[in-house]
């Protein structure tokens, strides 16, 4: 899989409107600059986003104990959006870092509220959780839409909402390294997350500080979502599809599967980004759109295919 990932990354480096051939890099200083300012940052941003969103998804699924949950179906993304909108209106001159902080705080509050709400839902009706989460996200989106209409920001909001990487240049994506770092950090807590996935009572029995692990998980997921939304926009379905695909093959031991989840997330997102760049060459289709359609199709297959023989 590592090999495949390298191959994709190499392809991504040499796909774009400005022609760039591997041979030119060695001789042409301009080509080298293009590579350093645009292509390498873009590829890195896609890889970091895909990996960290997939990791955030798998953590969320363990904490809520539901396979159909990800930051996009728990209101996390929408809450971050609302925070970003608020800070844009109230303090438009704030730095990117300040905006990120506001979005993270909003995402944190939104996710925590949802986890509180989700506990009220009886566990024998598992499909109700993503359903409620989607409606909850819808309510938050309605608030954001209302504010945006009043302030004529609606089209702007729409552009924010669909994630894409065409604006990524050196100096404009570095926050994503933080998200990547968080994903790596969560690897050290992988065993704790796996146990927490067994439920509150079992984890307490096994001597786990459940509250702490839950808190750490929520903070990680919220921060990753907020970082991704602020830098590239909303990317639904990655956190949902990738962990489900991986856990079909590798099971739920996070220590073993987390690297695979991260790698698959990065690879799939990169593949979709390359597709988005090639389908309407020389224009681009935002990767959010490509992955939105692809991810929805996979999700539906998982939903309906499972029942057909189960």
């Amino acid at each position, binding site marked *: 899989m590592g090999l495949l990932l390298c191959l994709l990354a190499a392809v991504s480096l040499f796909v774009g409107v400005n022609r760039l051939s591997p041979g030119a890099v060695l001789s042409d200083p301009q080509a080298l600059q293009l590579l350093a300012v645009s292509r390498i940052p873009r590829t890195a941003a896609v890889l970091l986003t895909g990996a960290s969103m997939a990791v955030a998804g798998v953590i969320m699924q363990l904490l809520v104990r539901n396979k159909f949950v990800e930051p996009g179906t728990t209101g996390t993304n929408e809450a971050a959006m609302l925070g970003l909108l608020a800070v844009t209106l109230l303090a438009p001159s704030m730095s990117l870092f300040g905006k990120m902080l506001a979005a993270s705080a909003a995402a944190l509050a939104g996710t925590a509220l949802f986890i509180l709400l989700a506990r009220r839902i*009886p566990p024998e009706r598992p*499909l109700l959780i993503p359903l409620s989460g989607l409606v909850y996200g819808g309510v938050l989106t309605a608030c954001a839409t209302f504010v945006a209409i009043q302030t004529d920001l609606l089209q702007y909001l729409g552009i924010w909402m669909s994630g894409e990487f065409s604006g990524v240049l050196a100096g404009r994506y570095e926050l994503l390294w933080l998200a990547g770092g968080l994903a790596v950090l969560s690897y050290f807590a992988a065993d704790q997350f796996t146990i927490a996935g067994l439920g509150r009572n079992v984890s307490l029995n096994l001597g786990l500080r459940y509250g702490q692990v839950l808190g750490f998980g929520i903070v990680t997921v919220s921060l990753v979502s907020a970082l991704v939304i602020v830098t590239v926009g909303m990317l639904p379905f990655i956190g949902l599809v990738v962990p489900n695909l991986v856990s079909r093959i590798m099971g739920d031991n996070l220590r073993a599967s987390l690297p695979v989840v991260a790698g698959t997330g990065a690879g799939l997102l990169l593949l979709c980004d390359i597709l988005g760049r090639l389908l309407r060459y020389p224009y681009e289709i935002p990767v959010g759109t490509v992955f939105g359609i692809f991810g929805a199709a996979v999700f539906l297959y998982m*939903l309906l295919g499972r029942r057909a023989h189960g």
Partner: protein
Amino acid sequence: MADRRILGLSCLLAAAAALFLFWGLRGPVAYILELRLVKLAGLLSVGAAVGVATVLLQTISRNRILTPAFMGFDALFLLLQTGLVAGLGIAGSSQIPALAGFLLDAAVMMGAALVLFTSVLRRTRHDIQLMVLTGVVLGLMFRTITAFLQRLMDPSEFSIVQARMFAQFGSFDREALAMALGLMMLAFWWVWSNHAVLDVAALGRDTARSLGVGHDRLQLKVLCIIAALVSVSTALAGPVAFLGLLVTSLAHSLMRTHRHALLLPAAALISALILVAGQTVFERILMLQSTLAVVIEFCGGLLFMFLLAKGKIR
């Protein structure tokens, strides 16, 4: 006792309708009255359709938080509107006659809903929750495509789409309204003549079957009725996602019964009352044309969160 509540609601609705018709009636009375009558008919039919459709959906899914709008109807409507403006441009899309636009919207939504209901229900062995989730995911997919199309638009095209993103109760096309009314009457007639069967179906699939109700067939029929009602009302006015939720909660807490003979008229009356009274207040007193839909959405959304927090969702 219960009949008195229905009677009270009817009186309230009649009063609201009278207020809507005759308040501030000046100038060419006959002309204005005719305009207002058309609008009133539109409000009443959209309200009744949304109320009845939501009660039906909640009955067959045995779930008190669902409304048909969650299942992708709104998203499909928006995609259609966006697609029309994006494909034909401003000039092209404004040349479509209102009636043709209405027919196209209604037909596409109804067709999509029927395909979804029949194909998915068979696959999921009549697991309605799974079907709803499928609808929700499809809705997300539609929204992604809509967002992409809107991104390609220039601001003047976008402003046309933006105007259609929320329900408009200000004007109705007469021919479209007449057709919608006919279809709705048919649907209401079927629902009314089956209200006792619906009571049994609300007990759940196994109980209903052991009591001799052909549950699966009934479910499919009811879903078709829902599809017709929601498609027509959305094509008439636009998306009203949370109105149904608001209405059914109010109807349940007012009637305190599971009998559809009382629930259905109560929901229809409350829904129409909210729309007529709300439109009167917003149009005549506050002089705001288009905010009613947004306010309803917001109240309904808050109510949803409240229901979720109280653990009322089973």
